């Protein structure tokens, strides 16, 4: 690249971005979103098959997704395939791409996405679904799998939102259900078949694949049982743009069996598997060099439950002077102790998630935290010198009453009092309240969504009851209504997504872009009512015909009944197996001795 002699007036630059793309880049916000050039980017010229990995949100969000990093590293480093990436263009870029007829390109080669063999989407949640259509459209790939032919990529969906694939079913050729690490080689091999039909047929035989309209049985969710004997991603792509989080990520544990009845991730990623501390520490050491970060985050759904947490923290901190280690979440019942032992490196603020405002409701959701534990955790936060405390709650939980909502204000009042007494007003307190959306494969899958009017009423109650000076934020009820409709949608719910997209819905997870009126119009046009799916527990639920999540319906029903009775279910890693149905046939809990 540098034939340029010092002081020369000649051009030094090679590798110009193609002119048709450069023309667009000159006119958009943050053009670096579309050009790649990150640390540890992989290039495999001439490699086959060519796979494009996408996350249907803007670059800055997508680049932080650890799931996509796993796929990218494994496909590029351990298979013959070349994996490239594309994220969802921001509306300013999308408008220019359409105006100038420039199809979606990948960050690695700047070549059109549409020319790849397989286009894999990691689907995080329902409010990204219109972005999937946006990306298909910008790439020039026909929306419906049925319309795709030999020259089109196979479009494959995965990630947590495929727990119910129906709202996207016709847009995808196939869905992969569960953890895919150990199936990637088979997927790559399937792509070698000589025709599209044969490639799809080969994919059908990969365990965990569900092909809409083709598969005769629900796909069994796949569990990566070699998790504990495999190193985490050691050479992640590190953005050159300012990142949301600038830390090296070591996934130390997968799965959580605390058994919160509202939590889809807790049911979806069972059973618990832990990586040995040695593996975590070695990974941290390499990651510090590869990323240039000075902070390591021990990632899992509940890192305080990782058996090796204390040893891993101590050893990683000792790797180099100045290395900090953070845990993404703390348990309230042990927060006081954790803050002292683990969280000394945590910068600024601490997040605690009591989720519900009264003991009864917390028992019903199996959160099992009591008021004294909460108070102790808050006191420890402020006494520990943390500058902020963020409390997470939900409203709209099954069985919730106005009294439970008043309980949230009471707990915020306790925290505000402690902020004044213990932190002497130096700490910020904020409360974030989301609206609960019942999700597939959880004990509350049989419950209905609380509805917009109930949620608005409770938000008003809470706003009025909140102590002054406590910052409170709510999820947009309308966005939750859309999320609930899609999360519980069955066959045909895709029409709502497509109609909303046609009317202009994009980036629905972004408050500045979410336009409820488009969804209302789409609902009217398709005859699909928003938020009203009434599911009966004696019926087959829509997602049960596509996905076998491992947790059995009888376990989920029993858990729902226990919740209604306010009974707690223990974490199976501490005692008795609750017979959720996940373990067996080579799948089992795999925790450190």
């Amino acid at each position, binding site marked *: 690249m540098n034939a340029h002699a*010092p002081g020369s007036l000649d051009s030094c630059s090679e590798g110009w971005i193609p002119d048709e793309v450069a023309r667009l880049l000159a006119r958009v916000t943050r053009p670096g979103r579309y050009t790649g050039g990150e640390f540890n980017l992989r290039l495999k010229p001439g490699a086959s098959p060519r796979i494009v990995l996408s996350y249907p949100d803007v670059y800055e969000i997508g680049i932080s997704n650890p799931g996509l990093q796993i796929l990218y590293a494994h496909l590029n480093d351990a298979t013959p395939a070349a994996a490239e990436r594309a994220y969802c263009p921001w509306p300013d870029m999308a408008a220019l791409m359409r105006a100038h007829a420039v199809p979606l390109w990948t960050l690695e080669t700047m070549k059109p996405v549409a020319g790849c063999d397989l286009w894999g989407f990691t689907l995080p949640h329902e409010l990204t679904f219109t972005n999937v259509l946006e990306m298909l459209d910008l790439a020039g790939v026909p929306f419906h799998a049925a319309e795709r032919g030999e020259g089109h990529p196979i479009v494959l969906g995965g990630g947590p939102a495929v727990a119910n694939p129906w709202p996207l079913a016709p847009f995808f050729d196939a869905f992969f259900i569960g953890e895919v690490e150990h199936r990637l080689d088979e997927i790559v091999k399937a792509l070698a078949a000589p025709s599209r039909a044969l490639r799809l047929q080969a994919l059908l035989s990969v365990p965990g694949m569900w092909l809409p309209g083709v598969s005769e049985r629900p796909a069994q969710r796949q569990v990566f049982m070699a998790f504990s004997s495999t190193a985490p991603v050691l050479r992640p792509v590190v953005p*050159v743009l300012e990142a949301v989080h600038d830390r090296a990520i070591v996934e130390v544990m997968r799965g959580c069996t605390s058994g919160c009845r509202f939590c889809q991730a807790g049911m979806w990623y069972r059973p618990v598997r832990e990586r040995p501390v040695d593996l975590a520490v070695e990974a941290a050491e390499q990651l510090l060099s590869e990323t240039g970060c000075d902070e390591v985050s021990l990632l899992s759904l509940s890192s305080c439950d990782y058996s090796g947490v204390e040893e891993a923290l101590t050893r990683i901190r000792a790797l180099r002077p100045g290395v900090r280690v953070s845990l993404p979440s703390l348990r309230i019942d042990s927060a006081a102790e954790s803050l002292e032992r683990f969280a000394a490196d945590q910068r600024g603020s601490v997040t605690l998630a009591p989720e519900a405002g009264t003991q009864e409701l917390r028992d019903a959701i199996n959160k099992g935290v009591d008021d004294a534990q909460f108070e102790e955790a808050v006191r420890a936060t402020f006494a520990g010198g943390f500058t902020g405390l963020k409390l997470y709650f939900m409203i709209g939980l099954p069985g919730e009453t106005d009294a439970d909502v008043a309980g949230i204000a009471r707990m915020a009042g306790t925290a505000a009092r402690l902020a004044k007494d213990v932190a002497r007003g130096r700490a910020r307190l904020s409360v974030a309240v989301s609206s609960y959306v019942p999700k597939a494969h959880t004990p509350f899958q049989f419950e209905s969504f609380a509805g917009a009017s109930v949620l608005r009423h409770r938000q008003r109650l809470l706003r009025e009851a909140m102590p002054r000076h406590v910052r409170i934020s709510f999820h947009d009820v309308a966005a939750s209504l859309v999320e609930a409709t899609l999360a519980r949608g069955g066959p045909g719910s895709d029409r709502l997504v497509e109609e909303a997209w046609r009317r202009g819905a994009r980036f629905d997870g972004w408050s500045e872009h979410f336009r409820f009126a488009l969804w209302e119009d789409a609902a009217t046009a398709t005859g699909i009512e928003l938020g009203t799916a009434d599911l009966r527990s004696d019926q087959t639920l829509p997602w049960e015909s596509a996905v076998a999540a491992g947790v059995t319906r009888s376990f989920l029903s029993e858990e729902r009944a226990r919740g209604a009775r306010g009974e707690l279910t223990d974490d199976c890693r501490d005692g008795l197996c609750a017979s959720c149905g996940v373990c067996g046939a080579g799948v089992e809990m795999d925790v450190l001795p």
Partner: protein
Amino acid sequence: MTWWLLTFSRAAAASYLSHLDTARAMQRTFARAGVPIALSQGMRPKPRLSLPLPLPVGASGCEELAVVEVPDDLPDPAAALRELRAAAPPGLRPLAIIVVGDQHPRPRVLEARYACVLEGDAGAVRAAVERYATEVSVVRERVSPKGRRTLDLKEYVVHAAAEPVPGGTRLSFAIRPRDDGAARPQEFIDLIAGWAEVEPVMRRLERRRVTWRDLPPGPSPGAGRSMSS
């Protein structure tokens, strides 16, 4: 502590980084290479690395300059340069390290040479460049968050030339900053594009050479006093 001048090129994907992101990418390159940067004093210590002449977003740079303070006990600059090259992201390439000593260098720009490609009527672009040569004064208004100011481009932009290339006209020019600031490349490109009635899209913009003064000690990086391989 010791000050280094690191020259580097910025091209391809890295051209689209903002000034801050370029500085951050450079800092991360040092961190990945295991070459420590000295930290500033104060409550929130910051790495002592700065880029004295911001490069516009979208522009390549053939020989950019970073001023960086490093601890005295570092490996020799040639070894550090090798590590930095291996650790840099695609598009950013460390070229040479000039060891300055313990005096903080504050290099100032004498002249920066640019080139870009303008699409559209090549004759019109050439005519616009010729017109620029004959004008005595070309006053333009700049509106920024700091307010409005007027500047006479003729006081800053020199050596304007147009040359046909495949797909358009290469416009080349030099900007000479003064004590009150400098014109921006886009301002001159907009002027010429406006006169020529072609699209002012900054394409293949490249800063090809920067002439510095006050680089203690000795000649500018461009004169080849370097430890490059």
